[in-house]
């Protein structure tokens, strides 16, 4: 993978960590911060897939997308619970 793509992927990863910290600071909700982190990690993973990807990059990205789905499902469940609890 070229140096440019590696740098872009690294920037996305760092952006994900910083973005997650910002989201946690703003919302005080861990799942929201995790969602932000995982989204940018997916972006980094997709950048690493550009060109000639290896199996490790593919399976890592698949795992991150699966985690993202779990976090999003958790967020949606949280919203439903909160909506149901409201009078």
């Amino acid at each position, binding site marked *: 993978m070229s140096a440019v793509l590696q740098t872009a992927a690294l920037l996305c990863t760092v952006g994900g960590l910083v973005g997650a910290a910002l989201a946690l600071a703003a919302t005080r909700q861990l799942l929201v911060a995790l969602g932000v982190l995982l*989204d940018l990690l997916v972006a980094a993973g997709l*950048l690493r897939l550009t060109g000639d990807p290896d199996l490790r990059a593919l399976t890592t990205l*698949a795992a991150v*997308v699966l985690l993202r789905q779990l976090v999003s499902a958790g967020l949606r469940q949280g919203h439903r619970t909160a*909506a149901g609890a409201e009078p």
Partner: protein
Amino acid sequence: MITATGWREELLSEESLRSWVDLLVRLVEAAGALIIFFGAALAFTRFISLTARRRREQEFTAVRLGLGRYLVLGLEFQLASDLLKTAVSPSYEDIGQLAAIAAIRTALNYFLGKEIAAERQELEAQEQADPGRGDPGRAVP
């Protein structure tokens, strides 16, 4: 002297086709990478803006939805480049490898798309339930 047939053979030879297709593959891959990086950069600046203005969770979700769309579009470009790689006389090994990569990318595309649709529905349901919570000036990408 090169005949008309010779020019045709020269232009459409496997080697020249392969080099043209390689160029197209690189261009399509570059476009996909640019889209993904642009979407990530845009989302990051919006996250900073939301944090500075102390916005709610739903607005973070809306920005994530926008990023998800950029990621799906970038994946489509990567799938297109996978298809292009099979254009010129691939070996069975090439095809097998590309099939595995394309299958995983297609699955990623499918799950990301489903998730984006579900989150969008959830966001719309929340806005309908409580229309006063959202910021009317908020731009949903």
